[in-house]
């Protein structure tokens, strides 16, 4: 990065000297020393110092001081999109999207974390002894991270992992939702469909007509399923896009097109959905767009496993009997 103007350490110090307990010259020295020690630009060193001072002297650590017992009970994640203040402590549930090259020696890790709807940069710095204050994060894994500190640079927010930070790995991808139940039905517009071929329009066309562009001669074929997965409480709308549809039906778009042309029947894929999916118990996971969960992982649940049966047997063999006895102790007041 070619910086257009390089500020001197003193100029940098003067920018935030009121916020800290140092004098400007002490600060200037500190900036120079850190820049030298960590082989980073003075601007970066100034940022480091400013951040640590703001956070450590002004807001004095996380609210829940109990360092131990950082369990899920008091873990209350902040949605990433709600992080819009610097120097705050938060808990976050995130997935590691990228790990970037470290930009200087004192950096342990830097990368991008994904939440439900937004992403945020994270960074971990070495402590005074040159050690990492926390365990390293792995790309593609999801974590419950307690007590990160927010920072802001050019209007972009980021979080820093500190010694107060605790990290717990989780199987739950924060960017995904899950639905489990019976594939009870699918909506019209499922199967082999045609989309409008006008530039930038992907509307599904019916009888060669696009609602926006009228008569379309050569629509483009696509595969998708708009399904309803019913868990007994809620019918969830889920959508299988081309790739997911190809996978669950075991047929490629090309094969489906060919089969439909051979049979002169576009509903041939709907028959496959009826045969293979309707009436099966499934678990689906994926990101949510609007009203639809977009399926990235589809698991068919066949039969029940011992764990589920044992949990149910525990429930029926312990639950009702004891509560029944309690109910029998009627009022004995005279």
């Amino acid at each position, binding site marked *: 990065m070619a910086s257009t103007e390089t500020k001197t350490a003193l100029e940098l110090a003067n920018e935030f000297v009121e916020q800290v307990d140092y004098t400007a010259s002490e600060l200037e020295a500190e900036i120079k020393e850190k820049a030298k020690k960590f082989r980073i630009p003075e601007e970066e060193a100034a940022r480091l110092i400013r951040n640590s001072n703001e956070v450590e002297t002004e807001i004095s650590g996380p609210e829940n001081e109990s360092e131990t017992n950082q369990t899920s009970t008091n873990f209350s994640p902040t949605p990433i999109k709600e992080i819009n203040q610097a120097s705050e402590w938060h808990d976050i549930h995130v997935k590691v999207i990228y790990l970037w090259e470290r930009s200087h020696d004192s950096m342990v890790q830097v990368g991008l974390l994904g939440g439900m709807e937004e992403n945020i940069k994270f960074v971990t710095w070495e402590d005074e002894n040159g050690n990492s204050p926390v365990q390293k994060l792995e790309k593609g894994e999801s974590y419950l991270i307690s007590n990160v500190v927010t920072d802001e640079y050019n209007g972009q927010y980021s979080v820093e992992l500190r010694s107060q930070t605790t990290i717990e790995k989780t199987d739950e991808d924060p960017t995904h939702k899950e639905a489990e139940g019976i594939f009870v039905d699918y909506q019209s517009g499922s199967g082999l469909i045609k989309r409008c071929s006008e530039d930038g329009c992907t509307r599904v066309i019916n009888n060669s007509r696009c609602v926006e562009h009228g008569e379309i001669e050569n629509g483009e074929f696509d595969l998708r399923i708009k399904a309803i997965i019913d*868990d*007994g409480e809620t019918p969830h709308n889920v959508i299988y896009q081309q790739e997911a549809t190809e996978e669950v039906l075991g047929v490629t778009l090309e094969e489906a097109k060919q089969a439909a042309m051979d049979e002169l029947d576009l509903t041939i894929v709907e028959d496959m959905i009826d045969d293979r999916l309707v009436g099966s118990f499934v678990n689906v996971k994926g990101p949510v767009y609007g009203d639809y969960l977009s399926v990235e992982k589809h698991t068919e649940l066949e039969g029940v496993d*011992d764990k589920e049966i044992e949990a149910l047997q525990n429930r029926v063999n312990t639950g009702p009997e004891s509560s029944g006895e309690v109910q029998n102790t009627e009022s004995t007041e005279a």
Partner: protein
Amino acid sequence: MSNNAPTRNEAVRVFASELNEAKVTYQREEDLDQQNTPNYHLLPTGKGANRIVIMGALTTVTKVKDDPKTLRSRVVGPTGESFLYASTYNPDALSTLEDLKPDDGSNELNAENVQTVMVIGKPTIIEGNNEQYVAINPEKVIISDGETQDRWICKTIEDTLDRLDAYENENAPRQEYAEAKYNFNHYELRQKVGEMTNSFETNSSSNAQPTTGD
């Protein structure tokens, strides 16, 4: 599809022994301005069911009417029987049942052609001689298998227990309504569900050898 289309109702997992008692129906006030106001059957455990899903063995398919063509089918589940009335209003289910009806003109399916089916549909009331019966207008009849039925049984046990718990804690969604309308033996249903649960065999219960920890 219009925007004010009613939102789809969930398919309630319910055993025949509970569903068959759900003879009281109601409509929700907030639905009254809809063209096809949905009907709910009040389950004895105090929940309304507009749509249900059951599983069992399809044993008979009988033509009971020609115009509109109507097939009555009997499905036997773990707690009892359910009757389906499929007509041309339920084209999907009707065509499946027609396919499953024996070719030789008989109504009974035999050991060779009996099928495990999943039925998704709407409960309805059939007027008998001097009694009302709960039957099902099937939307879908799906040929299934024993493993899927095991899962359905487990899920239905779970949901039935949830409803029983809610009812016994007096916080079922339609608690007072169910208390006023039914004289139902909830304890018996709980017993039955418990027996069904314990009849499932697991690896640890089938070869129940004490494990020595070495």
